[in-house]
């Protein structure tokens, strides 16, 4: 008797709740850290990137319009499903990042816990970042944070799941929708995450995930006129990418830009506050006269 031959997964893109191949028909080989073949991932094109922005824009009002409590529940549900896929993520993270099973387990556990941490922020961030303003006159005056809209996330190159979760979850908290460019060399956990999202209650188009070359996908997304913000964290260690050039492209539509650090952060550290959430919000101030 020979051992059973395993049934392998075709890794595809995640756009508008569907799993298309790249419209370009292209794929690229993804290897384990030791060079072993893992899979062929879709090599997304500029057109795929534009499709992803369209899907994100379409989904944005609905996601932002959900109550904060509801967004919290939906995001928490994602953590529940991540837990159920724990062993699969551990395997992918260990192979892709070239780390021991124990370290991969720690990274996956931290990623799930991080998701829970952010899920709990949905109905608190307005209380922490909003304000009742004591203006010098008979006016009601209130400031609240609102989602900025469609956010492009260049996911970290090294930390393929924990890093990804640490940059994606905060974008979603307030009601933004996301177009994620996954780690170029370690894209598989991102696609598995998209399978979790597809079977969760996160509406289609709220998260869209592209695999491929950061250097090919980032420029058209940075200059896209219907994108509100871009997180350049994943430019660190990305081949052929200069974050300053992307920031300059982003200026064309006055995008909010989160700059990368000089090196990839240690994602195992807990965030020291809701800064990543607030980086993708707008403060709205409402005035109304008071009178009898």
């Amino acid at each position, binding site marked *: 008797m020979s051992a059973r031959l395993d049934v392998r997964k075709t890794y595809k893109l995640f756009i508008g709740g569907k799993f298309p191949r790249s419209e370009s028909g292209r794929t690229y080989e993804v290897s384990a850290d030791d060079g072993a073949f893992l899979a062929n991932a879709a090599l997304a094109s500029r057109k795929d990137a534009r499709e992803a922005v369209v899907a994100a824009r379409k989904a944005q009002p609905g996601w932002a319009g959900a109550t904060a409590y509801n967004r919290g529940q939906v995001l928490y549900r994602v953590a529940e499903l991540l837990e159920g896929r724990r062993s699969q993520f551990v395997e992918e993270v260990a192979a892709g990042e070239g780390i021991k099973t124990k370290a991969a387990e720690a990274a996956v556990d931290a990623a799930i816990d991080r998701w829970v941490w952010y899920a709990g922020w949905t109905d608190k961030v307005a209380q922490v970042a909003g304000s009742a*303003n004591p203006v010098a006159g008979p006016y009601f*005056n209130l400031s609240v944070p609102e989602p900025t809209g469609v956010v492009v996330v260049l996911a970290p190159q090294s930390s393929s799941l924990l890093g990804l979760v640490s940059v994606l979850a905060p974008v979603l908290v307030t009601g933004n929708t996301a177009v994620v460019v996954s780690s170029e060399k370690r894209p598989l956990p991102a696609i598995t995450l998209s399978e979790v999202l597809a079977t969760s209650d996160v509406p289609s188009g709220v998260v869209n995930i592209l695999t491929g070359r950061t250097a090919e996908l980032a420029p058209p997304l940075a200059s896209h006129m219907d994108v509100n913000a871009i997180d350049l964290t994943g430019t660190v260690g990305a081949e052929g990418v200069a974050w300053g050039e992307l920031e*300059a492209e*982003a200026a064309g539509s006055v995008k909010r830009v989160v700059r990368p*650090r000089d090196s990839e952060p240690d994602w195992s550290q807990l965030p020291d506050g809701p800064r990543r959430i607030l980086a993708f919000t707008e403060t*709205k101030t409402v005035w109304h006269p008071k009178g009898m």
Partner: protein
Amino acid sequence: MSFEYAPAPESRAVVDIASSYGLFIDGTFVEPEGGKTFKTVNPATEEVLADVAEAGEPDVDRAVAAARRAYDKVWSRMPGSERAKYLYRIARLLAERSREFAVLETLDNGKPIRESRDVDVPTAAAHFFYYAGWADKLEHAGFGPNPRPHGVAAQVIPWNFPLLMLAWKIAPALAAGNTVVLKPAETTPLSALLFADLLRQAELPPGVVNIVTGARETGSLLVNHPGVDKIAFTGSTPVGKRIAAEVAGSRKSLTLELGGKAANIVFDDAPIDQAVEGIVNGIYFNQGQVCCAGSRLLVQESIADELVDRLKRRLSTLRVGDPMDKNTDVGAINSAQQLERITMLSQAGEDEGATRWTAACELPEKGYWFAPTVFTDVHPAHRIAREEIFGPVLSVLTFRTPAEAVAKANNTPYGLSAGIWTEKGSRILALADQLRAGVVWANTFNRFDPTSPFGGYKESGYGREGGRHGLAAYLAEGSAL
């Protein structure tokens, strides 16, 4: 029976204008190295008010170096409680010299003395007073336990509210512990230069605030100077985009307060007399040269004719003319260049088929003037419905349903402000949620307060000025991840 107003001119004797001004660097006025100057004129009379130094590269270098020295040696080491007292002093001095500042502002800018006296100067003083109190409470502002300033802040301000924009920039910067190099607008440098004299009285340490006058070239030298850590710019969206592109990759912190094309939405149940006053205040305040001006009137179709009739009647009573007259409602346009832009876009409105109405009023022969103007039959695709005119020109569009009002209001790359007029509270709250604008005025318009965050969505910029939120722009922890 008709009432005539007797002239009620404010005296310009309260302010001394020097024939020429140098650059304010390191606590003293110095001549620009290249010796270049430009003239600033009274836009209401075209009279030259003064010769003003134009800062070139060596001058900007000196100013940034002075700000750095003051930051390293004095300001960053000073306890917040001491910084606070300097800011309180400035607030008090501004209030004490308010009449002088109001007159100078009106002479250099062209805005009615009633506005500079009642809005610009008192709000500027209030801004310093508000931020003074933050200087020794930063660790309680919600930006972490040990908030740090950026260092040297480069601040470039516009000509529409010269002193008020100076206050919006300098007060939070100093409170947070930064030092400043400020560039006032080319056409309105005088109130900033008088402010330098006020700093002398306040005995602010040399170099903490430096003022370099000049045009766009000076501003570009300043924001691109490698010694600058933080940039705050208020002005047009095209220039804001250019600055953002220029500083990309430099790690300089940047906040932008840019243009707008605000919708002022009037529903059929609105208190109509108040709405008319609000529309007038929204677009004719400061001759409409306001980034958050309510330049697109969206009126519910069923009351459109009546509202526009009443609006025209009200506009016919506005007094346009001498800004120094205390009865004047609408003053001069700030510059010939701005007048040309307003004239050009208004012509485009006519050419594209909108119907033009202009208030019948006599305009002075000299100076830059534009009578309050209303366009009806405006299509959303018209230039006057899309582009920021920055003048006393209102474009009227109509809608039928609240959803249509929201869609039309949001149909712009800008997102600075919006207005809602209705008696229905639930509708106000629902609309306020859906409007993509940084400030929403409901049953009021163009209100400003030091405690109230102000700033844009989308291409109207990023960052907030005013309130606790306004501190974030001047603290490294406010933006860094």
